[in-house]
């Protein structure tokens, strides 16, 4: 019950924020979209970067997410303290490793990840480049696209971000951390291209 009570006002606040955004005069509400387009970053091939807000969103999301791994050294530590069976040092080693990991997640990793992420969409295909350790490039022909969604988790919502998910008959691909208007636009662009491509068939 508590959880619900905590969440409800937040939700309401959020929707009221959205409403107030919509309530603003048109010129003003268009302004941010336009400026975000101007600021939109592209690389030398004209491929687009994700929203720069992604870095901070990932720092928070990644650091929070990596806390789950802390259960391993903590659990082991608790077991090792309890009995004499196991040595205690692995708990410290794992602790240091995970601490470093969390620190990295909160600092450099999101930055590098953002720098590596590019996407490009035209009427033929979706082209994704990404990867920190494993650098990957994926092509998805528009003809193969079955549906497109936008998604927004709690952290993304705080930063006004959303991700676009593209589903084919065989797999699903995500373009993460786009600013909300960009994500909405991209979703409708892809589904429009997909519709045209299907009509051509």
């Amino acid at each position: 019950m508590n959880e619900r009570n905590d969440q409800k006002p937040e939700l309401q606040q959020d929707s009221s924020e959205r409403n107030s955004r919509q309530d603003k005069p048109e010129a003003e509400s268009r302004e941010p979209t336009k400026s975000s387009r101007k600021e939109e970053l592209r690389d030398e091939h004209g491929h687009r970067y994700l929203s720069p807000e992604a870095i901070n969103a990932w720092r928070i999301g990644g650091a929070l997410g990596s806390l789950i791994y802390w259960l391993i050294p903590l659990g082991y530590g608790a077991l090792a303290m309890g009995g004499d069976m196991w040595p205690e040092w692995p708990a410290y080693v794992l602790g240091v490793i995970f601490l470093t990991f969390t620190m990295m997640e909160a600092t450099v990793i999101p930055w590098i990840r953002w720098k590596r992420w590019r996407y490009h969409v035209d009427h033929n295909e979706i082209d994704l480049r990404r990867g920190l350790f494993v650098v990957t490039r994926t092509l998805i022909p528009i003809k193969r696209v079955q549906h497109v969604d936008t998604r927004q988790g709690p952290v993304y919502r705080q930063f006004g971000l959303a991700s676009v998910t593209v589903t084919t008959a065989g797999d699903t691909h995500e373009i993460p951390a786009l600013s909300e208007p960009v994500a909405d636009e991209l979703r409708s662009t892809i589904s429009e291209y997909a519709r045209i491509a299907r009509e051509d068939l």
Partner: protein
Amino acid sequence: MTFVFRTLRELIVPIILIFFLGQGGNSPLFTWWGISLMLLVLFVTGFVNWLRFTWRVEEGELRIEQGLLVRKKRYVPRDRIQAIDISSGPLQRMFGLVRLNVLTAGGSSPEAQISALSRSDAQAIQDALQVEMRSPDSVEKESTWPVYRITRKRLLLAASTAGSFGVALSIVGTVMAQINQVVSEEQMIDFLESWIGGTSVEFWVTFVVLAVLAAWLLSLFGTLLRFSGFTLSRNGRELYIRRGLFEKKQITIPYHRIQAVRVVEGILRQPFGFAMVYVENAGFGDEGGKTTVVFPLLRKRELHTFMEEMLPEYDVQLPGVRPPGRAFLRYQIRTVVPALMAASTLAWFMEVYWLIPVIFMAAALMAYIRYRDAAAGFEEKNGFMRFRRLARTTVMFQRRRVQSLSVMANWFQRRKKLCSVQAVVASGSSGAVFRVDHLDESVRNEWLGWYGADHSVDRPELPAGTWPDWRADGPVYET
């Protein structure tokens, strides 16, 4: 009446489960109560389901309605029906009934099935809908297309080399665990010791040998049951499979739903030059979708003729490349390191240190054949990939069937100018992923150029090599 038998058949697994689980210290009375209660519940639900199952032909539609609480309606319009399959299992035969399977065009919805109805009713449905009705024999007899039927010798060979040890071993493991509950370990060791007259090491060796033998027998009989009477026929539009010993299964695979062809040379089969052929298949239904065996055992030199006759779109020879020499070390590391980690953990716990060098050698050998067997290539509309986990798998696909293509390189690969290629095709309601590791960096742009919309990508000549290489023995070998 068949509903009784159908529910009985559905019940067998839970009964066995209850029987075994119930042995864990509970009174036998509880077990029997449990079984009777379950029988009763399932009997009643079976009966109600039967009562609530109705079908009729109305306004040119086959209308099937079923379900007690959630009423499920499936209306199949006549022009969406491609064919009606009629078959009969042993139960249906006992009561002179048939099972009716409605095949629809396009793969967007699961097909409709009526599991028991009289032959005259089936005839009535056919007349009302005026669609082609097929029974097992009609397709094979009427068509002038080639038919592949498994011989007894081949079936036996397929069964004895099936080696689906993973599944079989887990079954044996479960059975052993249950035996442990009934008979204590000491009793068993005592029994085995008096029987074999050996020490603890001998006990374990015997145990392992027996377990492997049991697993092998299980997979042997499983394969015999599954593939007995395997018959593959075709017409212009679809492949048609019939198999099974007691229960005859029929599978229809329309050609337009085939996404890729997979030739798998199992580790026990490859030395004898045998392979199994699968297709990846987009669609619904438990047998009509996903990965389906289209022939259980073929000689490698028969494959070319088989492909030409049954899967002509995939009967192509393609240029391809193998990983360069510098990839050898990557293959070694990828196979040996995890194997060594598993081996040393096991050796440490069980104090069998000789296991480490043995597993090291085995892994190094495995890595070598993985390296040697990897290949990938494409030409025009077709592509292929060959890779090995345990069995050597050669996958052939058409460009238009590939859902997405990725080229990736991790830090180690980038340092050695290597990359991996990964293609996804639809399979069932999800996908199948094929991937070849550690190819030369240059294939990156070649594959992206082949698959991508921009075909202007400069394509350097590929080093020689043509795949699939079973055609080397085939009648139309060209250099």
